[in-house]
């Protein structure tokens, strides 16, 4: 340890590459160990955890995505609500949710404890898929198909809030998902 000491505005002279004091060394070691824990948690959760934003990711032409989504709606449509088609796809189906200024189409009826593949994309600008009230948030970007395996674990009525600014009507962009037994 050095025999002189100075503040941060003094130019240190001589060799200052010297060992730190014991308390400082201990803190650096503890911090480093904690950083390794922080790092390990993410790959570990991929192996053991149930919530990972991995998905199947692909580029998609917005017109193609729209065509796929419209086929999906046509096939499984059961009714209309407030001008939105309501679909009830079979368990395990690929779901297509269109984001555009300023609506989420269609309304979906899903089954609890069944895995679906949810495709998200936008036809115009960036949008944000925010499943309310359970707080699942995914970025929706035009030109990209983000397909996530999702398994609803609660019965009830959910909302899809848009949480990426998408223009003046951003706040009315509210969609609906229903989960049944």
């Amino acid at each position, binding site marked *: 340890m050095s025999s002189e000491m*100075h503040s941060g505005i003094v130019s240190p002279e001589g060799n200052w590459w010297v060992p730190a004091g014991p308390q400082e060394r201990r803190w650096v070691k503890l911090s480093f160990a904690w950083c390794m824990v*922080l790092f390990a948690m*993410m*790959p570990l959760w991929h192996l053991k955890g149930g919530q990972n934003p991995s998905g199947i990711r692909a580029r998609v032409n917005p017109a193609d995505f729209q065509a796929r989504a419209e086929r999906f709606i046509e096939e499984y449509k059961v009714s209309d609500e407030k001008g939105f088609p309501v679909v009830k796809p079979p368990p395990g189906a690929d779901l297509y949710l269109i984001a555009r200024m300023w609506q989420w189409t269609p309304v979906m009826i899903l089954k609890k404890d069944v895995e679906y593949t949810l495709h998200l994309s936008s036809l115009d600008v960036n949008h944000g898929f925010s499943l309310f009230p359970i*707080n699942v948030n995914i970025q929706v970007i035009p030109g990209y198909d983000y397909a996530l395996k999702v398994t609803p674990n609660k019965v009830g009525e959910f909302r899809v809030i848009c949480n990426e600014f998408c223009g003046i009507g*951003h*706040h009315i962009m*509210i969609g609906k998902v229903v989960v049944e037994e």
Partner: protein
Amino acid sequence: MTSTVITSMAQRMRSCPITGLKVDINAERLIKVNAVVAVVCFLLGAVAALGLVLTRWQAVHYLSVQMYYRFLTLHGLNMLIFFIIFFEMAVLYFAGPVLLNARLPAPKWGWFAFLLMVVGAVLVNVMVFSGQADVLFTSYPPLRAASWYYLGIILFAVGALIVTFLFLAALHYAKKEGTYKGSIPLVTFGALTANIIAIITLVHGALIYIPAYLWSLDLISLDPQVYRLIFWGLGHSSQQINVAAMVSIWYLLAGMTVGGVVLNEKISRTAFVLYILFISMASAHHLLVDPGMGPAWKVWNTSYAMYLAVLASLIHGFTVPAGIEMGQRIRGFTQGKFEWLRKAPWSDPGFSGMIISIIIFGFMGGITGVTIGTEQINIMAHNTLRIPGHFHVTVVGGTALAFMAVTYYLIPLIFKKRVAFWGMARWQPWVFGVGISIMAIGMSFMGGFGVPRRHWDITATGAPFPLEFHPAVDLLQAVFGLGGIIAVAGALMFIVIAVVSVFFGKPFSEESVTTKASGVPQGILALPAQAHSGGAVTRAHRDGTPGTVILTFIFFVCFVVYYFINWKLLTFLWRIG
């Protein structure tokens, strides 16, 4: 020939009666103009902030939808870009030429850069005010602003880039002309870190705003995901400029207010280098739930290659308070574990501002940031109010407050004025710090209930399906609103003090020190010893810093608990993969 050079150089320098440093007149003037413009931008941002707080607080809901997003754009740009970077330019001129006793080479370039930055900032503000750039701070394409908007940002960035090269030139000439002995001081080293990160950041800025400008002229196409990737190479890396500048200011103020020492140069400097090495990876935090990148990319980058940049902040989180403790112990405050803290100069806003900044940044900003920046936990946080809840306690409660604290020292030392409304100045860091903390807590918890950020109306009036949040959100909104109003009050206090001091303040001179005039921080009235040797150092090494060990341990426990609570919360979600 040589003598005329020396004479002309001598005319360009003045000697500081307090610190004994030789100050280049051009550097001093550039510090002044950059700091003044920074405060003007801060005022614009603060006024906008008040409008935003009074709109998101649904009980008030003041602004129209159009004005809300316009104010939000204005607030983000003026606070996060213009205020911060103008102030950082002042910090660079101070930590380079001034602290090194050196001249500022090519001062004309400094003035040219300043001009470019002002023109850029004015252009951007005019575009936003006139409603031609309602695209928010991030301007994600395909949302489009008028071309002049992107050009304004480019001019501003080019100006800032010139200043970063001037700083490097000043360091080079200081070394060559031998204006200091040994190594550059730690504070300058930290500023050099900020400077290098600024260059990396501004290059990202050029890489994205030049294509965006061309795209706005319909000359090229622009991929929205690629934009987000490179934009955040600017947007988040620039926050690391702030961190490095803020930590440097902590070291500076620690020294000037209580004679805080550097425990170990090797450790503190290595920590700064870690910032530089892992900074461009910070972009990934913003893309954790984006479709463009895979899990391996996200995990590696969001962790800054195994959290080594976080390690850097954890190190400073110990060495700064420990340096303060050791400095205070050398000054004789050796009783118990916390006499050094109890008997610290709490009525000096330079000191209190620094401490509050350290606490807010570390305890609130750091812990929340690392947690919500975890790949999977980000699913619960992305684009909710937890995000602004986090960065208002890093960049505002941390960086902006540190900038305010150092301003109380710059006013006498650089502007040669006494601080006006000294009684109010003593309270200002507390008001601002408490306000911003309350506001951020309100935001963070609202985000936990799924309340989105950047949203005019969470009652979703006119939406096809009704939206009703948990009743607790109403209470949290009031907490957020009150905190926000207190923070804006603290910000306006700072602006009034700074403007009145600089333009109408009483002059500061050596006489102000001998008469102990009001409006002069105690660290300037009696600058603590900046270097020690002999028995005091031996005793300091022997006693260590027991108080800081306890404080950092409490911090560590909070961190671990908060982190794992969030993993637990994640398990309640749907399965996603």
